[in-house]
């Protein structure tokens, strides 16, 4: 276990140049809303970054910019090196599965769209399903699954292409607390095994502290980065961490920052 932690630290140092940088990024929608204003942010390889903030602070917009689902109005996003389109996996707020397709077919989809046949994709798909503990549900259709299981399928689908960066847009917001905790644990386990870079959007302080190596607190109107915090707690984190005083203290500090960020919004109002 210690070995794993050491590995992670290594990789963090190795990637001195950030994997991805926001350089003065702004996004204004056609209806005049400024979703992001002058955002400067570095995401390093192997980071687990949470974007934390009230609704309307542009955190989802930032995620869509990284995914190239949207383009910035001003400034630019710089990637360390030319990475192909394949480098990004996206987990949406809802499971967003094809309701008519089996669990297997849903996870196969990203590979299928890249021209990988069912036969060739089977090992990768089944391995991913095993990772999210759904290997026995390959033939089920989404409506036969619980909310948490659907989310697992969604994560497996995002991971099946082995992306360098996994983007998650409040993926567990609609789940009950017990399921959310379980999925938090599983996600961290997956992150440590696969060593991808994670950008996680959430409005839950507790979730962000539990998961992240870094928390970017954002403020709204206009959406901007308010504080960039490092979470000083070693991985792997488990249930013991969740009930530790360190965790409570970190949550308190993050929560304080968040409330200052939310007040800041009131002050800057014209």
């Amino acid at each position, binding site marked *: 276990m210690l070995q794993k932690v050491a590995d992670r630290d290594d990789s963090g140092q190795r990637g001195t140049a950030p994997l991805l940088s926001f350089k003065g990024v702004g996004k204004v929608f056609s209806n005049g809303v400024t979703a992001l204003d002058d955002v400067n942010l570095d995401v390093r390889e192997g980071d687990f970054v949470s974007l934390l903030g009230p609704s309307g602070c542009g955190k989802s917009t930032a995620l869509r910019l990284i995914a190239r*689902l949207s383009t910035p109005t001003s400034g630019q996003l710089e990637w360390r090196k030319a990475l192909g389109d394949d480098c990004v996996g*996206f987990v949406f707020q809802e499971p*967003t599965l094809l*309701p008519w397709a089996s669990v297997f077919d849903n996870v196969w989809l990203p590979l299928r*769209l890249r021209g990988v046949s069912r036969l060739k994709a089977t090992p990768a798909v089944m391995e991913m399903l095993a990772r999210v503990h759904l290997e026995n549900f390959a033939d089920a259709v989404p409506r036969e699954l*619980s909310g948490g299981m659907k989310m697992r399928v969604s994560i497996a689908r995002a991971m099946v292409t082995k992306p360098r960066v996994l983007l998650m847009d409040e993926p567990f917001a609609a789940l009950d607390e017990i399921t959310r905790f379980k999925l938090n644990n599983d996600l961290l386990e997956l992150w440590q095994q696969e060593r991808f870079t994670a950008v996680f959007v959430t409005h839950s302080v507790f979730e962000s502290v539990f998961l992240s190596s870094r928390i970017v607190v954002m403020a709204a109107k206009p959406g901007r980065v308010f504080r960039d915090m490092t979470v000083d707690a070693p991985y792997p984190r488990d249930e013991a961490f969740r009930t530790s005083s360190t965790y409570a203290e970190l949550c308190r500090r993050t929560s304080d920052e968040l409330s200052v960020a939310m007040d800041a919004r009131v002050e800057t109002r014209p």
Partner: protein
Amino acid sequence: MTAIENRSVVLDPEEARRVRQQRLEKIGSWVLPLAIMVVAVWFWDRICVWNDIPKYILPRPGVVVQTLQDDAPLLFSSLLVTLKITFLSLALAILGGVGLAVLFAQSKWVEMSFFPFAVILQVTPIVAIFPLINIYVDNQTAKLLLCAWIVAFFPILSNTTLGLNSVDRNLRDLFRLNGATRWQELWHLRLPAAMPYFLGGLKIAGGLSLIGAVVAEFVAGTSGQASGLASRIIEAGYRLNAPRLFAALILISLTGIVIFLVLSLLSHLILRRWHESALKQEA
């Protein structure tokens, strides 16, 4: 998971009542309409007898059934003609409706430009268009087909267009993220998503293609050997042959019912695993 095991448990009175109720409703949904039908037919028979109505005005049900038997060769050969027009026009409606919908789905501009024409074609009563078709088209079968097609294709076109356009935004983003081509998006996402809408349109179009086939024949006024049920009805009307008129009418109704049932079954089979409309209510 909702895997409820079938255990022999002791039910409380409320649950037992609910189970009984469900069983009754299940039987009732078949028996009640059937019983009402039987009573209605019996009443029809009685009205004929009580009022001494001559059979060229209102034949007794028994006479109609007898006619159905006696005139079977004539009626069924006509039914075949009508069925041919109905199914051919339905097939063309599916082809045309889905084809146009897919074309519309390729570009908002195409849809905006051409959809109004489809609407105009749809809202103009077919009977009013027919004289024109009669002038321009020589072939009798082609005439009838065109007529039935105009009536039947619109629900498929409009429903499928709606379905193709009502794909979950996130799913479209997902396809974009994975570099899907337009064709892949159509095949793997938009067409399956449009399936429930298409099947809904198909159910309507099935009935309409029959109506279209019958109406077309009415206005075309064909006669002779290769004429459908509509011609038989007109013919029977002229000759005050009410029993045959009723027999032909019953055949048309039965055909409509069968088409509806077959299309409902098809829809159920296709959607039963995933779509809300085909799911059984879970207690």
